[in-house]
């Protein structure tokens, strides 16, 4: 009997509570609750934040370049790019590129918010370092929201993180609110707290190149003001603010031995080689050629025909390619502009070969409308032409072989904004001529322009030629309220050059509401009534 009781006692021992046992520690991932504690960890989180930014070039390609009259989709495909190019407004609601862009920009913002939430409590060895990091993170957050607000207009915004439940509470705000409450304060803070060059305190010398500086923040803020001056906000009060910032950046460049300025056209063309990354831009999205990771530029694979890039790059077919996005040709009008040659057979605008393909990359001739952008495509021929050796074939056969950085802010952009805001004047024309003369074009004179409109048209065109493929064109057209006339004109003029008569008809799709993209259907469906769709869609 005793024996029985002993056994029962033994069993009852087993039945003791084990609540601690059920607190299984997460061993497969880093848990945010015990991260963001030290400056080193904040630094790592910022590296993660840069990683989320790598998609910006791609999004600017699809949502800005393809949408604008810089890119002409030769072939209709149901998916992706052609819906954007042809203004297939009903389809855009569920367009994958649009939906992805929305998500990717918010991912940048959410990562920034997660850092901001902890950066003031994390242990820092230096307060200066903390200040600089705050400026950096806010700069990046502003950049993400700046694109979001320009593409989508009425968007939800937040400066804090969410739980699964609370993310359903964020409602949309007007574009103006987003600018005033988030973008401008963030950039003002960045302009104040960032340094002349980025200083990294974390006992490391590497990793300081490619991060924002005070001038980058001022330049971006200037661009924000320029944008607010234009359609649809038409906030002319921002003009003065913009001009003084633009001037400051230009003066800074001058005072520092023409920093960021390529002195001649040869140097300009070489600017688009990865060897010259981080020399010419105020801020750029980093890319690298590396055998093991996908760290290449996100824009290039979408801009080129598959059969071309495979012949040039050792034959990698696994990457996303131009083909399935419908032959993204350079718009025929723009191609013709670049193809012009003078009497001695030289290109009139010598930026031509740096910007577009004039022959096939293997030297073959082009036919029909075939012409691709190659600013961000270092094919063999282009490298050879500009005096660079070929890249290693084994590296090039990898899934991501696009080593060029992508400029977010370039001095030329700032100069041409300034020329625009100065208006038809000697001063304005002097800035306009800076990029023109470098490209081998004849300098303009004040007498060339009889009206302000003529002058503004010339600045806009110069921006198109200088900044082609960099994602500015669509924003310029919207800002200056010219997207409707320009795009309608593109369909009417270019349509007949194809075999598809439908394309002319797409002019009718360019409607007053199309300056914005629709809020992605998938996001509207997350919860009924959470967001209201942009007008017209």
């Amino acid at each position: 009997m005793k024996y029985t009781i002993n056994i029962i006692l033994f069993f009852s021992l087993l039945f003791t509570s084990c609540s601690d046992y059920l607190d299984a520690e997460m061993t497969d991932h880093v848990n945010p609750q015990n991260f963001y504690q030290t400056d080193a960890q904040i630094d790592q989180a910022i590296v993660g934040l840069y990683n989320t930014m790598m998609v910006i070039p791609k999004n600017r390609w699809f949502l800005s370049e393809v949408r604008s009259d810089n890119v002409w989709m030769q072939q209709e495909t149901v998916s992706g790019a052609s819906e954007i190019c042809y203004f297939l407004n009903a389809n855009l609601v569920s367009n994958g590129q649009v939906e992805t862009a929305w998500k990717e920009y918010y991912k940048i913002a959410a990562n920034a918010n997660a850092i901001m939430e902890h950066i003031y409590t994390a242990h820092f060895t230096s307060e200066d370092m903390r200040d600089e990091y705050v400026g950096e993170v806010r700069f990046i957050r502003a950049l993400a929201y700046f694109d979001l607000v320009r593409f989508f207009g009425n968007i939800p915004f937040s400066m804090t993180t969410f739980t699964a439940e609370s993310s359903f509470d964020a409602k949309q705000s007007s574009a103006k609110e987003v600018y005033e409450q988030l973008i401008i304060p963030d950039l003002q803070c960045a302009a104040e707290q960032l340094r002349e060059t980025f200083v990294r305190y974390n006992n490391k010398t590497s990793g300081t190149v490619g991060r924002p500086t005070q001038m980058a923040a001022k330049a971006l803020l200037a661009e924000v003001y320029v944008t607010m001056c234009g359609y649809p906000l038409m906030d002319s009060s921002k003009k003065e603010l913009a001009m003084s910032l633009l001037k400051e950046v230009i003066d800074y460049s001058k005072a520092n031995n023409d920093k960021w300025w390529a002195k001649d056209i040869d140097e300009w063309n070489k600017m688009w080689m990865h060897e010259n990354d981080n020399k010419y831009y105020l801020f750029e999205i980093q890319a690298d050629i590396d055998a093991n990771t996908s760290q290449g530029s996100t824009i290039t694979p979408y801009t080129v025909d598959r059969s071309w890039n495979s012949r040039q790059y050792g034959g990698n077919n696994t990457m996303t390619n131009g083909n399935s996005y419908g032959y993204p040709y350079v718009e025929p009008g723009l191609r013709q502009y670049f193809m012009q040659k003078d009497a001695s057979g030289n290109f009139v605008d010598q930026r031509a070969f740096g910007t577009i393909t004039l022959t096939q990359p293997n030297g073959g001739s082009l036919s029909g409308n075939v012409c691709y952008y190659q600013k961000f495509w270092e094919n063999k021929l282009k490298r050879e032409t500009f005096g660079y050796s070929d890249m290693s074939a084994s590296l090039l056969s990898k899934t991501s072989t696009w080593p060029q950085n992508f400029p977010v802010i370039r001095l030329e952009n700032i100069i041409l904004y300034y020329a625009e805001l100065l208006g038809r004047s000697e001063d304005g024309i002097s800035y306009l001529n800076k990029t023109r003369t470098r490209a081998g074009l004849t300098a303009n004179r004040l007498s060339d322009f009889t009206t302000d409109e003529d002058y503004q048209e010339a600045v806009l065109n110069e921006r198109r030629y200088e900044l082609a493929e960099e994602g500015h064109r669509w924003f310029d057209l919207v800002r200056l309220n010219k997207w409707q006339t320009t795009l309608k004109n593109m369909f009417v003029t270019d349509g007949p050059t194809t075999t598809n008569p439908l394309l002319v008809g797409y002019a009718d799709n360019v409607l007053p509401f199309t300056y914005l993209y629709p809020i992605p259907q998938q996001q509207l469906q997350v919860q009924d009534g959470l967001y209201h769709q942009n007008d017209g869609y």
Partner: protein
Amino acid sequence: MKQLIAILALLLMTLGIYAQREIKGTVVDDNGEPLIGATVKANDSNGTVTDLDGNFKITVDDKVKTLKVSYIGYKAGVIKLNATRSQYKLAMQLETTTIKDVVVIGYGAVKKGDVTSAISKIDGEEIEDRPVNNVADLLQGQLAGVEISNNSGTPGGKTTINVRGSVTLNDYVASGDDTDNTAPLYVVDGVPMDDDFDLSSFDAHDIASIEVLKDASSSAIYGSRGANGVIIITTKQPDKSGKFSITASANFSLQQVNKHIDMMSGSDYARWANAMANQRYVNTYGAQGGEADDGMLIRSTLTGKSNFNTINAGTAQDYLRDIRWTIPGHPGLTYIDWQDEAYRIAPQQQYSIAASGSNKQSNFRVSFGYTKQDGIIRGSGYERFSGSAQGQTKIDRFTFGVSIAPSLSVYNAVGTNSATDPINLNILTAVPVAEADAGVLTSSYPYNYYAFASDSSTNPVVRLENTKQERQLFRMLSNAYLKIDIWDGLKAEITGTWNMRLQSTRNFSPSTTKNLYRFNADGGEGMGTKGSWTDKKGHTFSLQALLNYNNTFGKHNVNGMLGWSISNTRWSDSSQTSAEDFVNDAVEGYTLNSADITKLDVAYTTPSRMVSYFGRGIYNYDNRYVVNFSLRRDGSSRFGENTRWATFPSFSLGWRISNEDFWPEDFIVNSLKFRMSYGKNGRSNIRPNAIKSSLTTATVYFDGVSQNGYKLSALGNVDLTWQKTDSWDFALDVGILKNRISFAIDYYIKHTGNMLYQMYLPAISGYETAYFNIGKIRSSGLDIEMKTINITKPFKWTSTLNIGFQTNRVLDLGGNDRIMSGTSAYGSGKTQILEVGERVGDYYLYDYMGVFTSQADLDSYPHVATAQVGGIKVRDANGDGKIDENDRIRCGNPRPDVTIGMSHRFSWKNWELYFLITSQFGGKIFAGQVGTKGFFNHPQGSYAGSRNMFAEYGENMWLSEENPGDGQTPAAWLTNSGYNYGGTTRNLYSSDYIKLKNITLSYKFRLPKKGLVKGLSVMLGIENALQWDRYDAGYSPESSAIQNSSMSAYDLVAYPTARIYSLGVKFSM
């Protein structure tokens, strides 16, 4: 106090004094051999054992009327004493029928008649002779309400099992980490397995019985894990008869593909491609003067494409034709039937041997099985080594036992498991024409692909032969237990378990299998080779303690059980290396300096832990009324502190009406039982770390210098809690004509709520999805299981029939009205829908009407802007004059309404003939392959002519307004033949089928009783003998690219199921 009572009882026993006498006797076994060491007892204090000759002597008093004889492995024997006699002989009966008379329930067993819940059972003997490797396949058609789908014939492939239409919402979000949320819980010899377990590592010869607990009252004892039903596997236990025995079996079979899909032949392809190229040329360049019989030169001039006859000409081939197509006999070309090249008649062999023995105290069983199956697709195969060893020994009240069952499975399956590039798609669509000198080596080193096909797809045969995709899975189940007979019917049991899994996957693709782009590359041989090696390992430890009490007091039978268990699983720590560009094709191993390492990765998993308390009581009065109550409390580490514990109660009632006094003795219905049950189950099928947020590594190169960091990756939800299912079951068990006919009818209804579902989040959160507990689904159905003995002598015929009907309804989707779900069809969105008030996962597609046969037709019917003549015409279902997403219609469900299994067994003298027929009705299958990139009728110009297609498509395709085909088949060559070409009803097929699943003829030799060899039989069988179905687009209506039982039925030409001819022999001694 208790001790006092015991002492009193003991005292009372010794009080009476009676006259004494001596009894002698012999105890023998069923063959008349003496049993040594059998226990003979007059009462608790007076007993003896038999000697070497089986004799015993015992002195008893007059009051003793019977002697009880017991011996391990034999039924208890009784000797009735006669006052005048002193010499007795008793023949003991073997306890062979034990396993058949009881039904294993969770943590225990009950007599068949006492079962109060819905349990289906199958004995190992009934299935072990079939030439099928996966035990799960063998269960098909055997169990009512258990839907078993043979999704693919891949050697060693997984078979999905779905008990009573289990369904949950999380299947409908591709989450990556939980693929089959409706898989049942497996319990092997009383120990619950982890989520990853499947039956394929078992040799059927080691299985004694399989029980399926279908209703919640039986499965609730497994609480949180029983929601999808429980499958209990009882392995063969040592023979306890005191003898040594050996059984062995061997089986040899030949497998053959049982269907040939009618693709275009080489000559048909040439004819069609010629017509198509001409038509396309005329369509595009007709306005500029292009005519069908223009030669190469004119075409070249017109199209501006100068590189016609070279590889990589882009779209040039669209307008081009091979001049040889029009020359009779197509000189210089060869035709290839890729199905003939890739499929083969493949052998399979299976061997098993088991030895078992026992003596009075100890017993053991060891077994070994070996299976080698060559796949019917070249290069594929499966090999399994399985073993088991178990032993137990009894000392006094203690029984100690260990068991260990290792198995090693080796899978060779090139592309057969790939959801994105299944090898069959490659086989079917490879262009059937090649340059004569290249032949079957076309598109592989050193030959170009056939240039006029403008395609670079991989040569399937070379890919099969040269590519290596080998997976080795080592699995070991082991446990040790201690059982204690504490006191009169009270038993305790502690079991410790360690299960482990080691898996290593090895892939290598040499450059020979690549298309020509690779050979043109600078690297030469070795360039483009890819290899990877992945190791995964997992362990589960668990400890379980049970107290069992069973006793009978007159008409009252009481059974009680209390238990506790704890487990810790860490299931897939892994490491992976990938490399590419090896020195050459011969080097496969990792000589790191000669290949580029592209990935080096080590991943850990968060452990998943559980603590459970459970108990059950069964009360049976006079074999008439049975009441069963159970309660379980589970805590899981997958949930947050406040939500991790849940309680799962159940009860069931049984009434054996035929045991009542009023039941007429000779009534035609000889047995009738009514039973009903209710129970609550749970489910915790989420990632072990779903409640916690996590960060993932992220790299950035600042000015070419790599920096490592972290970014947000998953958002946790600490409020998550158990998914819960409430279910009811009402049933009748009936026996008629002395059980000549017996059947059980079960009706069930269950509500599953609080489902763990990954919902999309607003992107502002920074995340795509997070888990929530939402929704409610009701499922209900009817299971009928019937057994009949049709004829008994001399010819015996028995039959079984089981039928399962099931349906379900979505009752709530957490505030959403509808959620699109399922797999995306090519060129259109997801193919299935969840909608409140409707069945779960109905297909939701455009209603296919045919093609726009003419411009007039196109102009007169609503269409999308990009529609063209010759393209797809879909119905304007909502009649609003335009075609958009709202025109999709609900058009059937992937799950069948009814599944049926029927078997017949005829025996005559030494012969036996067995048939098994399975079928299902009312479901639909979506042929995902039709409209897949490059397949059949993919209407995107750049693929047209680049792949082979259905013969019928070539015949019937729209070519021009004058030549519109059958009006149902769109032009394959249009640049854009309309909206959503993949997601139309054209690609939806009925999945009804009737299949003669198995025929076995066996002959059992009559052997002398005393001989060494006890049994010898031979078998001839055909598996998957005949099939009727209506699925023309693929091999089998059971196919599914998604190994997920509740969605299934999205095919991508799964590996065909083979017809197997087999010859087997079975032997025992």
